[in-house]
Every structure is written in structure tokens, then in C-alpha cells.
């Protein structure tokens, strides 16, 4: 039972950076823009967070810096992809590589100094409940923030007019332009939201999860976040499900390694990636349902006509 409880909590924590990054990318893609540079933006966020933390500022500013860093990185992508209408695949890949380089550059002096990680919140009463308290009420503030942001993104996309406009632009920017929406501006906002969320995901890795600076510490999570969005058929709830699945598999394979399974560790390490993608592919087989949520204009540059 203890093992289950601790694995449950560990799963939630492992899924958190993915939830941030994937929710952000979901909003970006819903507006019809494909930003492949999540990995780079996460790394920049992770490096910015540690940088500001080591400079002696409080944790909240470190997290804020990561958010700003991610947003600035995405802004570069935005200028290329939205203003200059370059190929979005190329611009995104460039950002991924650029982010890895810049973060490594920033991180040169960090060494292996561990960070004093953000501590779990103690909620009087709730945190002390046996089992349930440990499963649900002993997390750090960012985990709760990820839940709040999930609710906020779902509410925004499906309950507000701005969210409706965003989805409309993702389906047909020409029609949206024809009825008077400023497609490029709204896409910029979406892209920067995606960057900020990726930066937050990066900060979670460097300030809570690991917590120290390691070059390329995202270890492909940016790409997994990207895959989550696609295989979750652009639905927020499935993104969360996919992130938990990935987190759960990560924890399971760590346990497997710990108890000394005879399977090679490389195979075990690959398990979360394989399992997540297989399961999401299986649940996204219904093409008609996929078509409803797919942003039809994805990755196509928009040029206002006339």
C-alpha cells in the first residue's frame, strides 16, 4: 500500500512538466500554428529559472523568469513563422536546437550545484489524512498550479468567446479574417502562451523535479509533449491522461530497475515513451472524432488576402 501511495504521488509529479508544456502547445496548435520547438523552450525555461535562483532571487521570481524566458523564445519563433511566414516545421526545429544551445551556454557556470527545491505545501488538516493526504495533498504549489491551468485552458477554449475565436482561426483563418478577426495577432498571443507554459514546464524540471542543472535535462519531454497533443486529438482532458500515463510508466520502470529486473535498463527506459504513444494511438483511432478537434489550418502560414 505504501508503495502504491508513493508511486501514485510520484506519477503526478513526473507528469507535471509534461502537463504544462502540452497544455501550452495545445493552445498554440488550436490556433493553427505548429511550434516544434517545445524542447528548446523548456530548456531555456529551466536554465532561466536556475540562473535567477542562483542570483539570489526568491523562488517565485525564478519561476517567473522561466515563464518569461519561454515566452521570449517563442516570440522568436512567432516572428519567423507568423510575420515572415517561414515554414513552421523548420522554424520550430530551429528553435529546439537553438534552445538546447542557449541553455547550455547559460548553464556553463552552474556546475552540479543542487538547487534547494521548491517544497511541498503543507495544508493543515488535509495533508495529515492518512493515505489520501499523501496521495493528494502533499504536493508542491506548481503541481496544484498545473491543475488550475488545466481547468483554465479547458474553460478558455470551450466556454469563452476568445477561445471560440481561437479554435475558429485554427480551422479556417481565411473565414475568421473575412468576418473581422485579427488572425496574426491572436496567433502571436497563442504562441507566446505556449512558450510561457513550456518555460514553466522547464522550471519544474530544474527547480523541483531534478533539482539541479544538467545539460539537455528535458531528455525528450518536449517531444513527448508534442506527441501528447497530437495523440490526445487536441483535447485537454486526454492530454492530462497521456501525461499521467507517461508519468506512471516512468515511475514503474524506475521501480523495475530498482528491484533488479533482468530486462536491460535501456529497454525499461524506453517503456514510458512507447507505452504512451501506443495507448494514445489506440484511443485516437476514431477518425470522425479526430476530425472534429483537429485544427485544419495547422502549420499553414496565413497570408491575409487582398
Amino acid at each position, binding site marked *: 500500500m505504501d508503495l502504491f501511495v508513493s508511486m501514485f504521488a510520484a506519477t503526478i509529479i513526473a507528469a507535471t512538466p509534461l502537463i504544462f508544456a502540452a497544455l501550452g502547445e495545445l493552445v498554440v496548435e488550436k490556433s493553427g500554428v505548429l511550434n516544434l520547438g517545445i524542447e528548446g523552450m523548456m530548456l531555456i525555461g529551466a536554465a532561466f529559472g536556475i540562473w535567477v535562483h542562483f542570483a539570489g532571487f526568491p523562488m517565485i521570481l525564478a519561476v517567473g523568469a522561466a515563464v518569461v524566458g519561454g515566452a521570449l523564445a517563442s516570440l522568436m519563433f512567432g516572428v519567423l513563422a507568423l510575420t515572415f511566414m517561414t515554414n513552421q516545421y523548420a522554424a520550430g526545429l530551429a528553435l529546439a536546437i537553438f534552445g538546447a544551445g542557449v541553455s547550455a551556454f547559460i548553464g556553463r557556470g552552474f556546475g552540479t550545484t543542487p538547487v534547494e527545491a521548491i517544497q511541498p505545501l503543507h495544508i493543515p488538516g488535509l495533508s495529515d489524512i492518512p493515505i489520501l493526504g499523501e496521495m493528494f495533498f502533499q504536493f508542491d504549489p506548481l503541481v496544484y498550479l498545473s491543475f488550475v491551468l488545466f481547468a483554465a485552458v479547458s474553460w478558455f477554449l470551450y466556454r469563452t*468567446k476568445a477561445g471560440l475565436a481561437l*479554435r475558429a482561426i485554427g*480551422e*479556417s483563418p*481565411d*473565414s475568421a479574417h473575412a468576418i*473581422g478577426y485579427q488572425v496574426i495577432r491572436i496567433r502571436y498571443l497563442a504562441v507566446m502562451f505556449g512558450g510561457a507554459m513550456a518555460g514553466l514546464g522547464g522550471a519544474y524540471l530544474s527547480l523541483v523535479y531534478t533539482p539541479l542543472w544538467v545539460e539537455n535535462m528535458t531528455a525528450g519531454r518536449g517531444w513527448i509533449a508534442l506527441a501528447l497533443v497530437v495523440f490526445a486529438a487536441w483535447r485537454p482532458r486526454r492530454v492530462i491522461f497521456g501525461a499521467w500515463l507517461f508519468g506512471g510508466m516512468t515511475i514503474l520502470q524506475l521501480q523495475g530497475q530498482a528491484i533488479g529486473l533482468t530486462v536491460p535498463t535501456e529497454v525499461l527506459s524506453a517503456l514510458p515513451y512507447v507505452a504512451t504513444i501506443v495507448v494514445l494511438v489506440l484511443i485516437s483511432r476514431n477518425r470522425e472524432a479526430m476530425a472534429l*478537434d483537429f485544427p485544419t489550418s495547422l502549420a499553414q502560414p496565413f497570408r491575409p488576402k487582398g
Partner: protein
Amino acid sequence: MNPRLELRGISKSYPGVLANDEISLTVQPGEIHAILGENGAGKSTLMKIIYGATHADAGEILCDGVAVPEHGPAVSRELGIEMVYQHFALFESLTVAENVSLSMPGNMDLKALAARIRDVSEKYGLPIDPDRRVLSLSVGERQRVEIVRCLLRNPKLLILDEPTSVLTPQAVHKLFETLRTLAQEGCSILYISHKLDEVRALCHSATVLRGGRVTGVADPRKSTSAELARMMVGNDLPEVILTKTELSHAPMLSVNNLSMASESVVGTSLKSVSLEVHGGEIVGLAGVSGNGQSELAAAISGERITNAAEDILLEGRPIGHLDAGRRRDLGLGFVPEERLGRGAVPPHELSENALLTAHRQGMVKRGMVNRKRARAFARDVIDKYSVKANGPDAKAHGLSGGNLQKYIMGREIEMAPRVLLVSQPTWGVDVGASAYIRQTLIDLSRSGAAVIVISEELEELFEICDRLYVFCHGALSHSLDRNATNVEEIGLLMSGTGGAAQTAVPSADEVRHVV
């Protein structure tokens, strides 16, 4: 009183084309003003300039006497100018109410909006369900959504682009009443149409365009159709000639008691549909869109495989189990309703689009494309069917709707099909091209092929068909001889109030007797 809208010397050129050349016109409050013109005459460009979707190179726009500077659609809508596009500006994955709310100011209250949509759609006889996704709506229903969306904003100037092509005669009647009411309430209407009779019945004045210039201003109530047509086309209209014909002995295509559940939740299921088409005749399928036409077209063309091979017979041979490509191999041609994306690949060249279906004409050898042949074929079609295009290298989406349709029709007819199924052959196509396409269909049938035309334009069906069937709720009526029926009877069958759907399939002899 200032005119509602005044254009002074509007000019606009695109690379290689002068789309609008010094166009001036005046629309008074409460006036229904027709813009008549062939495809490519510059009507759509002019409307886009008025609406602000594109900007004029020169000229002035005055709204209620006040000059409108360079403006976008948002400004236009504030001025009370609303437009129903020919290619609808709707979002397929969203519901009707969501689509409407996107062009309404203020916050989103879908429930209240849905109620208002129901009110307006009932008041003006444009029934739509606000909770349905646009994805599941037929072309005709989508147009209703567009019109209702405009009406909800209480426009001062409403621009309608070919609005009646998808309505039943009764519904056209109703729409005209709606428009007259609106005009009486003071709303001005710009009515773009090529249907001269409708313009004469509805409009107070007309501006005729040809080649980007104003070629005439008329009072359509006092002009004859021939006079208007001459201003529009530059010469007299070609007349469609329906000649006598010899029917093949056996039916070329028969559909036998075909029932098929709809693929999507919201589509129409086919209910024991039977029909027979002989070589040498044109059979028309009338009906308001969304009553099973697209489902039957999919079943006949092979886009959907039927349950039993014997459901569909091509020259006596069961083909229900064959895919679309195999059916084409056997001589069954199909021209779908959507030109861009289904009949042709928009960003591809015409010669590449020829390959899509005409690769059967020896354009592919051992898996390799013979581009020379494809280009020669495309050039042939362009010449023979007088398609206005810059040769076989022109991109499909660069052609006007009418020209692309002529090209697609030409492509299919040049393959000498035994049976040709055409869906909406002249949707959005101008008078000259329509007449040409219709005559081509008649000639094809007279050469011994069987032609099936799905159309919502009754005039067109009456002009070219030998027999008619009427769709209603997924069922097909009995066969009607063109000479023994009339628009009113068909209209009643369309709305399901004109007697029972078909009970027995007419035998070949009966059909021959009727024709």
C-alpha cells in the same frame, strides 16, 4: 436624403487582370439593387471592396453620404454592411450558434443566441437547428446559416451572392418575401445573381458588369431578360437545344431498392431508393440538399461500397462492391459537387488534375507518368471546352468556378463515359458557361451515354432532363416525365407533401413509354 451606398470610380487590378475599371453605382435606402454579370466580370471583387475584405486601388466609397476610408470587414459590420459569401465563411467543426456568435458583438451567451436564431429563422422561413455542427449541414443549409447570421445584426446594407441556387421554388418565394420585407424596413440589398427572371421579379434597379466595367444600368422591372442578357454577355444567349433521342434497350445504370444507413450521425439514410437510367437520356434528381443526394452520389460513384454488389448495376453488371477507381475503369464517370478539393486539387496544375481521373487514357506507363500526354490532354480540354486559363500549367484554384467546372466536365466527358453522374453541374456558374455545360451534357446523352444530374436548380433540370426523380428525406419519388409535370408538383414532392414516395420501380418499358 443621402444614398445608402455610393461608389465613385472604383478600380482594382490584380497582376494581369483589371478586375474593376472605374465602377460607379448608387443604392438608395430600401432599394434592392442587382449586380448582374458573367463570372470574371468583377462582381465578387467589387463586393469584397465594398465589404472591406480587399481594398480598391482608386475610387471612393460613401456610406450614407460619409466617405468610408480604407476599411476592414469589422468596420463594415459596424457601418451595418453584411455579406453572404458565395464560398461561405463558416467553421465546420463549430455549431451553428457558435458560428453566429463569432460575428456578434459582446459576450457569448449561446443559449440566448440559439433562441434568437430560432426566432429569426422561423420569422424569415429559413429553418435551421442552432445546435448542429456546420460539418453536418448541406450547402443549402449552410447558406441559411449565413443569411440568418446577417439578419441577426439588423443590417443596413445586405450583400447576397447568388442566394437562391439552393432553394426550392417555394423557398425562393419565401426568401423574396423576406428580402422585400427587409427592404421595406429600410435595409438596402445588393443582389448578385445570374438568374434574370429572379432579378426581374425582385430588384428595383440593376447594374450590369462585363469585363470589369459597367456596361449598363437598367430597371429590371421594365426590361426583358433578353435585353439584360445582352448587356451582360455582349451578344445573344446561346440556347440549349434538347433533341429527340433513341433510348438504349436495357438500362445502363440501375439502382435496386438501395437502403443505406448514413455514415455520420447527422447525415441522411437512403430508404429503398430505386432508379433506372437508359443510354440516350438525362435523368434529373431534384430535391433540397441534404435529403440523400450526396449519399446516393457516394453510393453510385463508389466512394461508398454498398452492402450487396447487386444494389447497383452498370450495364447489367453488379458493381456495388467495387471501389470508385474500378467503377471508373468500367466507364462510370462522376463529377462531384465540390470542385475544389474533390473534383480537382486546388494548388495543382490543370495537367496534373487531368491525371486524377484521365490517367486511364494512357498517361501512365509502368507506374511512370507521361507528362507530355497529360499536358496534351489538358490542352485539348481547355481548347475544346473554351476554358479560360493560361494553358495546362495554370493552377486549379486560379480558375473561376465556372471555368474550373468546364474543365472538370471536359475531363470526364473526354474519357467517353458510359454513364456520367454530375452533381450540381452549374452551381455558381454564369449564364454563358451554364448553357455550354448543359448543352455538353445533352450532347453526351444523345451520343448514347446515360447521364444523371443532381441539381437543386429546377429550371436547369427542366431545361435538360428527360425524366425527373425527387428526393425527400432519403427516399426517391416515382419517375416523372418532364413534359407531364411542373415546378409546383416537384416543389411539393421536395417538401414531402406531394404524395407517396416510390412504391414500385417503373419497368424499362414504362420508362420508354414515358420518354
